[in-house]
C-alpha cells in the first residue's frame, strides 16, 4: 500500500486504453527493419510485411470467431461504422432504403445515419428503457419490408450497457436483414462469436483493447449470407476492394497482438480481475456516500465500466476536485454542446442527475491501491462539494427540489 501511485490515475479506459508493452514490442520492428509495403509482391520486403499482416488478420479474426478473409482493416471504428452503414445501405439501396438503429449509439453511427437520410434513406431510431436496453419487440416491429440493415452496438461507450446481441442477431436473420454491430467497447472484455451471434458486420478499434490508435477493422461476413459493401474510399483496391490505401503494417501488427492478448485475458480470468476492481470502487463509494445513482443496467454491463451520478454535485466541479483521477463526465459543462449526455437523456435520467454523472473505466493496469486511493479522494471531494451545494442543503431541510420555481437561464 505504500508504493507510490502514478498520478493522475488512469480511470478512463472506455475512452482509450494504453498500448500494452507487448503490443509496442511487436510493432516496433515493422517501422524501420520491416518497412516494406505489404502490396509489394516482387521482393522480400513486401513478403515480410504481407506475412505480418496475414498473422494479424488471423489474430483479429480468432478474437471474434471469424475467418481471416472476413477482416477488412480500416483507420478505426469511426471509419468501420461509416463503411458498414453507408457501404451496406448503398449496396442494398435497390432492395430497400430503410435502416433501424438505436438512439444511444455512438456518434459515428448516428451521424452516418443522418448522412444517409440526406441521401433519401429512412432511419428508425429505437428508444431504450431506463436501463439503457432496447426492446426486442420494438425491434421486431420496426423491421419493415424495405428494411435492409439493423445496427445495434454491443456495449455502450458511456454507460457500458450490453445489448442482447445474440437475440438481435436471431431476429435480423429471421427477417432477412443484415445485422451490423459496433463491437468496439466489448472487444477486450466479452467473448464475441460472430457466427453464434449471427452478426453480419462488426466494427472494431484497436485502441480500446490495448492496441494503437488509428487502426480498426470491419468484419464483413462471407458465406451465407454473403455481405457486400460499397467502398467509401476509392483507390488501389486494397482489402478486396472494400478499403483502398496502403496497409499500415506496424499498426495492423499492433492490432493483431492486442487481439491475441484480449482473447487470452478473456479466457484466463484477466477480465474478472478488472471487474473486481470496478466492484471495489463502487462498493467503497456507496459505503461512504448516500444518494449515488448508477446510470444504466448493472446486470447487463461491461465489467470495467461504472457510470454514477453523485447527486447535488455538478460533474465538472467534481472532475476539477478529483483531478488526480482521469475520468469523464456526462455534465453539459464538459461537452462542446453545453447539453448533458444524449445517452443519459435517452435513458430518461433527470437532467439534474445527468449533470452530476461521472464515468469511470477501469482497466488491465489498474490496481487495488489505486482504487482505494480513488474511493478516499472521491468521498472527501463529494462531501466538500455537497457542503457547498444549496441543493443538498435544501434536501436536508426536507424541501422537494421539484416544488421550486427555478429561474431557467
Amino acid at each position, binding site marked *: 500500500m505504500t508504493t507510490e501511485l502514478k498520478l493522475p490515475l488512469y480511470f478512463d479506459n472506455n475512452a482509450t486504453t494504453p498500448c500494452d508493452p507487448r503490443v509496442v514490442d511487436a510493432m516496433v520492428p515493422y517501422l524501420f527493419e520491416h518497412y516494406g509495403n505489404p502490396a509489394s509482391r516482387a521482393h522480400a520486403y513486401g513478403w515480410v510485411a504481407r506475412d505480418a499482416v496475414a498473422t494479424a488478420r488471423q489474430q483479429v479474426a480468432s478474437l471474434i470467431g471469424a475467418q481471416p478473409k472476413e477482416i477488412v482493416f480500416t483507420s478505426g471504428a469511426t471509419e468501420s461504422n461509416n463503411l458498414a452503414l453507408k457501404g451496406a445501405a448503398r449496396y442494398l439501396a435497390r432492395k430497400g432504403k430503410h435502416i433501424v438503429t438505436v438512439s444511444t449509439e455512438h456518434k459515428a453511427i448516428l451521424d452516418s445515419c443522418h448522412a444517409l437520410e440526406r441521401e433519401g434513406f429512412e432511419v428508425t431510431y429505437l428508444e431504450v428503457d431506463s436501463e439503457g436496453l432496447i426492446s426486442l419487440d420494438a425491434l421486431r416491429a420496426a423491421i419493415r419490408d424495405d428494411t435492409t440493415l439493423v445496427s445495434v452496438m454491443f456495449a455502450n461507450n458511456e454507460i457500458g450497457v450490453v445489448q442482447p446481441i445474440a437475440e438481435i442477431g436471431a431476429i435480423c436473420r429471421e427477417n432477412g436483414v443484415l445485422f451490423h454491430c459496433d463491437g468496439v467497447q466489448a472487444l477486450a472484455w466479452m467473448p464475441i462469436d460472430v457466427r453464434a451471434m449471427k452478426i453480419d458486420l462488426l466494427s472494431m478499434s484497436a485502441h480500446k483493447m490495448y492496441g494503437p490508435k488509428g487502426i480498426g477493422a470491419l468484419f464483413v461476413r462471407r458465406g451465407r449470407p454473403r455481405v457486400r459493401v460499397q467502398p467509401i474510399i476509392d483507390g488501389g483496391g486494397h482489402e478486396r476492394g472494400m478499403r483502398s490505401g496502403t496497409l499500415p503494417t506496424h499498426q495492423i501488427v499492433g492490432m493483431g497482438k492486442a487481439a491475441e492478448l484480449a482473447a487470452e485475458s478473456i479466457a484466463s480470468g484477466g477480465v474478472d480481475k478488472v471487474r473486481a476492481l470496478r466492484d471495489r470502487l463502487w462498493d467503497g463509494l456507496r459505503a461512504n456516500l448516500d444518494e449515488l445513482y448508477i446510470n444504466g443496467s448493472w446486470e447487463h454491463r461491461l465489467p470495467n465500466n461504472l457510470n454514477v451520478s453523485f447527486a447535488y454535485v455538478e460533474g465538472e466541479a467534481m472532475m476539477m476536485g478529483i483531478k488526480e483521477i482521469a475520468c469523464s463526465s456526462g455534465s453539459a459543462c464538459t461537452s462542446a454542446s453545453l447539453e448533458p449526455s444524449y445517452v443519459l437523456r435517452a435513458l430518461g435520467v433527470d437532467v439534474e442527475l445527468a449533470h452530476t454523472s461521472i464515468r469511470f473505466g477501469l482497466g488491465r493496469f489498474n490496481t487495488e491501491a489505486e482504487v482505494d486511493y480513488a474511493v478516499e479522494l472521491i468521498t472527501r471531494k463529494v462531501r466538500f462539494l455537497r457542503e457547498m451545494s444549496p*441543493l443538498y442543503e435544501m434536501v436536508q431541510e426536507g424541501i422537494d427540489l421539484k416544488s421550486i420555481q427555478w429561474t431557467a437561464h
Partner: protein
Amino acid sequence: MGYSQKVIDHYENPQNVGSLDKADPMVGTGLVGAPACGDVMKLQLKINDDGIIEDAKFKTFGCGSAIASSSLVTTMVKGKSVVEAEQVSNAEIARELALPPVKIHCSVLAEDAIKAAIADYRQKRTEG
C-alpha cells in the same frame, strides 16, 4: 479544461461558504439558476440599518467557474453599501476570474444572485 489560476484558487479555497438565517429581517436571500441547467447559486447578504453589507455567504451547485464566481462575489460585496453592490457587473466578475466565453453565464448568474438577494432584503423591509 483550462481554468485560470484565480478560478482554481477560489474553487480550492472558497470564501464565505455557508448560510445565514433566512428568517432574519436583516438577511436577503437570492436563489438563482436551475438544477436542470447545471448551476444554482444561493447568495445571502446581511445588511445593517445603514445599508452596509456586513456579511455574505454562498452555496453553489455548478462547475468550478460558477463556484469561483459566487465566492468572488461574496468578497466583493462585503463592506459595500447596497447601492454599490448593485453596481457589480458580470463583466467585472468575468474579467477578474479571466472566464472564457463559454463560462460567461456563470458571472451573469453571480450578478443575478446579488440583485436577487437585495430584492429579497428590500421586500422584507417593506413588508416588515
